[in-house]
């Protein structure tokens, strides 16, 4: 009969006899487990960031720019004709069956003033459905309406950063601010979104009705045109269909023949983000795999020490066999020894991994996330390593002939 508890005791004692050797062997596993945990934390941090960005721009998102996308990518700069209009946006919303919402955008930067405070921020003129497109909610007050757009009302919604800088703790709703000297009534405050993928503050913004922006703030030589149109497809699966419907519709509206270059470009933002997410997943996997190699090396270290130990203790094995130890008593003893080494290494490695992740996040200013899953994974993996690399030495020990083992010098 196999007595696991006593076997554990025997194993732990054997390890204590060679403290230095055990410690060095454990070190291999510590480094391996620590590296795996740190690397997964770095990868998870990157993925989390991208996920946040995806949810902050909104889901199932397409963006339409003026200008063509040739083989060299999107070309729209100062020279590009602004070809998109509010009417285009309305047409897309009405006629493309896969589109849920289409919202035109005009944007610019402006100085704003409230009593003796002033602040320079980004002004976005748009339609109320923008907040549906971007899954963005109002934490205070309300969104402007389509009537506000129709009659170019001078109302605005503030982003959280603007509120913090101009009003501090004051409730801004109902107050009047001046944008480029034009007075606007504040009717709501937007929920905080944090940084965008490009790293700019999405809350440093003021939203106003698009017609107000055209008429009162950013009147251009191309009246009625907009900078971009943001489109939300009905579902993730509808994204591709929505893209082709928009292409077809705008071609028709802009009278572009089959041979001609488009004067607009449709970009699938969600797809771009998801590609980035996949890339981070692959990066995480690679980092983890590289770190696992060091864990594997640690495992080989365990096997090495266990083989030495079996040889050194041949006589002991002979004695144990002579007084009744069976095959699995001997095997279990050495397997448990290897497992003890690897699991102690695993536990300390977890501590080192967590510390490593903290250090990386401080030194590299990189968000790291230690998931419970990665801890379980690394610890479990170190256990498997112990079992795997402990088995052969244990197997070898158990096959010794008792008489030969007893005679071993």
């Amino acid at each position: 009969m196999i007595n696991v508890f006593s076997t554990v005791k025997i194993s732990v004692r054997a390890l204590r006899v060679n403290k230095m050797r055990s410690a060095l062997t454990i070190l291999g596993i510590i480094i391996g487990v620590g590296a795996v945990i740190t690397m997964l934390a770095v990868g998870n941090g990157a993925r989390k960031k991208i996920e946040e960005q995806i949810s902050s721009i909104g889901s199932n998102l397409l963006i339409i720019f003026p200008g063509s996308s040739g083989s060299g990518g999107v070309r729209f700069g100062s020279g590009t004709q602004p070809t998109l209009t509010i009417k285009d946006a309305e047409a897309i919303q009405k006629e493309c069956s896969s589109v849920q919402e289409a919202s035109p955008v005009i944007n610019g930067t402006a100085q704003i003033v409230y009593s003796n405070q002033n602040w320079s921020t980004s002004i976005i003129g748009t339609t109320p459905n923008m907040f549906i497109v971007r899954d963005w909610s109002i934490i205070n007050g309300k969104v402007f309406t389509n009537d506000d757009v129709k009659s170019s009302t001078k109302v605005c919604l503030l982003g959280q950063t603007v509120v913090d800088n101009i009003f501090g703790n004051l409730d801004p709703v109902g107050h009047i601010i001046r944008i480029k000297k034009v007075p606007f009534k504040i009717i709501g405050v937007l929920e905080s979104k944090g940084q965008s993928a490009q790293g700019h503050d999405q809350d440093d913004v003021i939203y106003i009705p698009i017609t107000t922006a055209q008429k009162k703030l950013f009147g251009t030589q191309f009246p009625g045109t907009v900078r971009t149109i943001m489109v939300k497809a009905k579902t993730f699966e509808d994204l591709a269909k929505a893209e082709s419907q928009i292409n077809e519709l705008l071609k028709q509206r802009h009278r572009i023949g089959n041979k001609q270059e488009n004067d607009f470009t449709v970009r699938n933002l969600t797809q771009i983000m998801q590609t980035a997410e996949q890339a981070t997943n692959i990066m995480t996997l690679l980092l983890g795999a590289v770190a696992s190699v060091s864990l594997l090396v640690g495992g080989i270290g365990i096997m090495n020490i266990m083989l030495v130990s079996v040889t050194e203790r041949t006589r002991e094995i002979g004695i144990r066999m002579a007084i009744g130890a069976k095959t699995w008593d001997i095997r279990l003893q050495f397997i448990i020894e290897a497992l003890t080494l690897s699991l102690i290494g695993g536990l300390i490695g977890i501590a080192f991994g967590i510390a490593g992740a903290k250090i990386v996040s401080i030194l590299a200013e990189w968000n790291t996330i230690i998931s419970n899953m990665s801890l379980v994974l690394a610890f479990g993996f170190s256990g498997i390593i112990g079992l795997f690399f402990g088995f052969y030495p244990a197997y070898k020990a158990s096959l010794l002939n008792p008489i030969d083992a007893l005679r071993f010098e």
Partner: protein
Amino acid sequence: MPLIEIKEVNKIYKLGDIEVNALHNISLSIEKGEFAGIMGPSGSGKSTFLNIIGCLDRPTSGQYLIDGFNVSQLNRDQLSNIRNIKIGFIFQGFNLLPRTSAIENVELPMLYKGVSAKERKKIAIEALSAVGLEERKNHYPNQLSGGQQQRVAIARALVNKAPIILADEPTGNLDTKTSSEIMELFLKLNRESNISIIIVTHEPDIAAYCKRIIRFKDGNIISDERNEQN
């Protein structure tokens, strides 16, 4: 029914092309409660014989029965089990586990038998006091004299109530006085617990304790007689 019955056992060692016939058609019976000595010159096959009786080694051919039970066909683990419960082995070099206290050494056969920790401890202390070493139970082998180590080994051989004790030159590393103490201990165990004892020795002083003396030469039994003095 004899406790140990050996029928035409041969043991041949092969060293390359050379064959060493260490045991040659040995047949022998040992009854319960016997105290037998095996004598003979060095290399005559005494240890080989004892190892086969002790199920540490297998004969090349022949039959071996313990309590009428044929052990020739048993596998490794079954042999381990026989060694565990039927046989107590005493070696010339004591063969205690190093860095392991006396009591833990004594507990070991019970560990492999599956005796509970509490029971193990109780029986181990009993066995240690039977060999007069109760107060040394926490000493390590390197803190004990040769005679004391051999007593611990004897205590270890007793704990599973094995009916057979096999001792291969148990006093070979001990001085005369300690040797006779160990032999007295064997005598006492034989007399009081009716344990069968087989001792390999080449010393006439030691053989004098035995009730039966079997002499080996070149792998053959050349004589097997009662010791008139006992």
